[in-house]
């Protein structure tokens, strides 16, 4: 969503972007002999380099000038490349990934909540808060927003548009790495994880509103709740279908998404 707003980049490898940083960490531990915290740091740095800087320089910049469609196809190819690369050079099997927190549970009003879930929610809330603060309250963040809204006018006003777009790619890389580190202890690290995560992310973004960060958050929460409620209280066999019903309903009746705003484009 950030990438779309600043550079009109639709990244169909976004799921694989979430899958990959976990393997950067595992590789740093396995081949580099690093401790888990050090490997996390290395994983984050490699993600910033590969999924941020190199993705922009080697894939987006040369291809985007030919239009959005070639970039969409390129990112589809990139997804296959990442997936098969991990399968070939690391493992086809699922890999255990250490958790951030010991496996302890708390009972609150009869409901069991794991410390791991609380850590995940906490990190996610802090990450969203920091991102919102950065985008809305800092000079660089406002310049990034201006770039997203109107790059031509931003350039006229002296904003270094190219640099702002690069920052967006780096922020995106940091966020996918964070998501990867949080989700892998539960889902296990596996080369196919991106398929599911990518689809869920797209559905959530479209349901919430593709041009609003808070829309994606609401879309993600709604999707997660609907998915789990349907599976727990209705039918686990049809759980995968319900988010898609939601998607169809939103596209039919509110195509800009629940919190998105309608945009006009010249075609």
């Amino acid at each position, binding site marked *: 969503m950030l990438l779309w707003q600043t550079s009109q980049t639709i990244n169909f490898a976004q799921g694989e972007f979430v899958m990959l940083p976990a393997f950067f960490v595992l590789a740093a531990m396995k081949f580099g002999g690093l401790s888990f915290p050090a490997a996390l740091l290395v994983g984050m740095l490699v993600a910033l380099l590969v999924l941020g800087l190199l993705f922009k320089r080697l894939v987006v910049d040369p291809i985007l000038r030919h239009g959005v469609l070639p970039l969409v196809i390129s990112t589809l190819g990139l997804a296959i490349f990442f997936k098969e690369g991990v*399968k070939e050079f690391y493992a*086809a*099997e*699922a*890999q*255990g990934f250490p958790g951030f927190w010991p*496996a302890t*549970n708390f*009972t609150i009003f009869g409901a*069991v909540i*794991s410390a*791991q*879930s609380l850590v995940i929610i906490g990190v996610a809330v802090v990450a969203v808060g920091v991102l919102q603060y950065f985008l809305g309250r800092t000079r660089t963040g406002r310049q990034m927003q201006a770039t997203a809204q109107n790059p031509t006018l931003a350039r006229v006003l002296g904003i270094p548009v190219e640099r702002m777009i690069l920052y967006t790619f780096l922020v995106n890389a940091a966020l996918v790495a964070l998501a990867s580190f949080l989700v892998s*202890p*539960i*889902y*296990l690290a*596996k080369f*196919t*994880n991106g398929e*599911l995560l990518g689809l869920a992310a797209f559905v959530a973004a479209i349901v919430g509103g593709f041009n609003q960060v808070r829309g994606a958050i609401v879309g993600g929460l709604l999707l997660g709740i609907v*998915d*789990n*409620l*349907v*599976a*727990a209280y209705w039918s*686990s*066999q049809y*759980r*995968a279908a319900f988010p898609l019903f939601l998607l169809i309903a939103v596209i039919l009746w509110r195509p800009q998404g629940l919190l998105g705003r309608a945009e006009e484009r010249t075609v």
Partner: protein
Amino acid sequence: MKANWLGAALILGAALGTAHAQQTVFIPIVIEVSGSGAVSGTNFRDGALMAIDEVNAKGGILGRKINAPVSDTQTNPGISRAQVQKALDGNPYAILGPVFSGSVKVNMLLAQAAEIPQFTGAEAAEITQMGNDYIFRTSFGQQMSMPKMAVFVADGIKARSVAFLWVNNDYGKGGRDVFFKEMAKRNIKIVADVSTEAGQVDFAADIVKLKSANADAIFIYTNEEECARVLREARKQGVKTPIIGETNVISQKVIDLAGDTAEGVRGHVGLTADAPIPAVQAFTDKFQKRYKYVPDHNGIKGYTAVYAIKHATEKLGKFDSKALAKLMKGLTIKPEQEPGILMEATWDAKGDIDRISFLVEVVKGRQKVVEVLPKLGK
């Protein structure tokens, strides 16, 4: 003159090729190297390759070394069928694999039509009930393992109700159907029947269902990776009900992936690398030294399949695929006759295997054998 040289070269090449073919016996491995069955498939492959290297180092079978290329089914029945067809095009003596029941059900018809024996690690009950004279298991089918599991549920943990979580594929459905019949015979209630998908990663809602069923035991019957995710989620949700399972949920790969969330899980395994049998322990040590990981039951399946073929062929005294399939019916191989078989094994007229099995509990990250169960035929 040039033409003469060319002709001579071609004849020499053909002769060398024929000589090479005669020096080797073609036993391709068609197996799950990737996809959701990779854990099972790679274990089976590694066990088989280790046995093949051992056999070849000792001169092969009847003086011919085993040529065993590996092809990946990607855990996809359609691709597995194509790979078996490709293997059959090379005139194999026998075929090893695959492990996933859905794939075997699709591709075993090809091997049957070609009259080539196929040694599979698949466990779905119906595989050996379809009148195929060329399919042979290297582990228990569900019709052999589930009755043992039912006895464990009824008499071992004395459960009167069970919540059952299963994977919606041929393996899961086959196991569910047999287990439900066994439970009905013993008047044990199934209070939750939760279907999941192969490759599923989020089990939060499924665990909610299992918890709310308030059963005496929770039975997990999915493939390895999913088992590990289920156990992790069960720990997250503070499940206190005893968790039990048949083979996969207590396999070493699941224990490795699930970490300490697998502690205390109990169940029945047809094969275990931790069996209190010296030959199995020696196998486990060799395997671990070679591959740097602890094998699960699939590693033993692949290993013993090769030695079963070797023993039967040496008994035949010739390479004859049809005769091999015929000889396997009713054949018993003892470790005294063939040490590589590890434990005495008997194949019945349908291709099902019978041998001792084990009740185990996960203790400190390893399977601990609690009880050794005799062969069903004894």
